[in-house]
């Protein structure tokens, strides 16, 4: 598999001028784990030593040898994405948006602000919307993740929400659309016939910089079978 690079990754020379951008100074290790902490007691737990190893294709420019640590490293995890089990090598600090886009190739999920302040990265985890830029991939092990890629039927038929977004010309530029669609899907699965105000509230965690909010609301109302 070819190495995927994070688009914003700057060349090494630039990094040197960033005083705090330091992947090399991880001396903490985990050798000092309390003896009371037997492995068995971490029933669902993971002690993931932070080895941003050069072997990952994450594009994190981790410098070479680091303290491996003596704790259990569970880097290779199984994720349930859109009903399929995907095996993937995940760093402890990796966000779900990052894993989806740069390790699993699911680029339908967009990274807008990367700070939980725009909603472009919204995915559904166990039926609830989450900002995938602000979710650790390690925390979704054993949970069901749905992205915009998982909505359409096997034969390519669009999900009713997607079709309604098309029919109502919901998006303008389209960058926030996958997140808007996921918020709408989560709303309608819980509340199939929302009022326009309820829809407005449910969609309020997704910013649209084109300002197509009313078009999106029209789309949600159409998807719910109510004329907008």
């Amino acid at each position: 598999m070819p190495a995927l690079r994070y688009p914003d990754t700057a060349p090494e020379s630039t990094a040197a001028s960033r005083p705090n951008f330091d992947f090399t100074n991880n001396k903490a290790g985990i050798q000092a784990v309390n003896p009371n902490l037997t492995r068995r007691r971490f029933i669902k737990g993971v002690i993931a030593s932070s080895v941003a190893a050069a072997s990952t294709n994450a594009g994190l420019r981790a410098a070479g040898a680091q303290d491996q640590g003596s704790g259990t490293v569970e880097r290779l995890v199984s994720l349930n994405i859109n009903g399929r089990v995907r095996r993937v090598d995940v760093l402890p600090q990796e966000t779900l948006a990052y894993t989806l886009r740069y390790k699993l190739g699911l680029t339908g999920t967009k990274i807008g602000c990367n700070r939980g302040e725009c909603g472009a990265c919204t995915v559904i985890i166990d039926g609830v919307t989450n900002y995938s830029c602000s979710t650790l991939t390690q925390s979704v092990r054993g949970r069901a993740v749905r992205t915009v890629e998982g909505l359409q039927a096997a034969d390519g038929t669009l999900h009713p929400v997607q079709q309604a977004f098309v029919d109502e010309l919901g998006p303008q530029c389209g960058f926030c659309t996958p997140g808007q669609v996921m918020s709408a899907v989560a709303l309608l699965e819980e509340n199939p016939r929302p009022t326009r105000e309820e829809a407005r509230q449910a969609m309020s965690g997704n910013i649209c910089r084109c300002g197509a909010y009313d078009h999106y609301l029209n789309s949600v109302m159409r998807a719910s079978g109510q004329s907008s």
Partner: protein
Amino acid sequence: MPSYDVMPDVQLYQPAELEDALNLLDEHKNDGWLLGGGQDTYGWLKDRAKNPKALIDVNGISALKGIRPVDGGLEIGAATTLREIIRDPVVNSDYALLAQAAGRVASPQIRNVGTLGGNLVQDARCWYYRRGLACYRAGGNICYADSPEGMNREHALFNASRCVAVSPSDTATALAALDATMVVASVDGTRELPADRFFAGPATHITRMTTLEPGEMLTAVRIPARWAGKRFYFEKVADRDVWDFALVSIAVAMDVDGATIGESRFVCGGVACTPYRLTDVERAVRGKALSDDTGDQAAALASKGARALNYNHFKIPLMENLVRRAIRV
């Protein structure tokens, strides 16, 4: 300082037992960081403005989750999400003040994962501090916000001491009005604190917002039955109705007999480094009729002692109006 989108190198622990989490926290007193919903965490880390070495994710600890009846009141685990609180039938019927406040936090997606504990102990939102500048709160010897050119529209009216940051938590305001207590645990045991001893202003602890010591964790919040089902009022004024923190918020609980106000709690958010209790207002409205006149009288007392900065004078009439609105019929 530039910001970086990539998460830094950090260790992640996901303990399943509270005892294990406390041991880890004790071991990482200086470089550990408790992770709840993480919505206040990742920005700090991505900016490299805080550099913990170990994240201790408490979401797998069932003892920290859920809402249960205790002594006629409620106990809410610190890792309970705001979503669960907003939708809980007992919270809605008896302590609607908390449900309303929790419902105004940030955005739906943040409420879906954000925890009560995380909302209560979140750090100050002063942008000078958030940018990683060496201000008083960060251990330095200057306040950038309270300087001649400082932008301090969001900052404090009361109890500033060198630092002028305000309490950003909506649920803290509501819980202070409900006389809630905070249960704090460490490897040495547990202690229970009322809101006025849990939240700390800059005169007490300038580098933290609470009296939590290193190695301590907020494990639960206990709400007594005292104010169950009473008259409540919550209002938050912010620039946007989503995401933004309160410019001023108010949480009120009051006994009302007929149309006469009895004992009450008036607490404002966004005006001091801690939830700010309006004891003068509480005294003044006691025994008075619930009316616009009472509201006008009380409003005049609300901002007594306020010390406005260059750009936050508007918070004074805002506070007064919120008090007025809480009392009107």
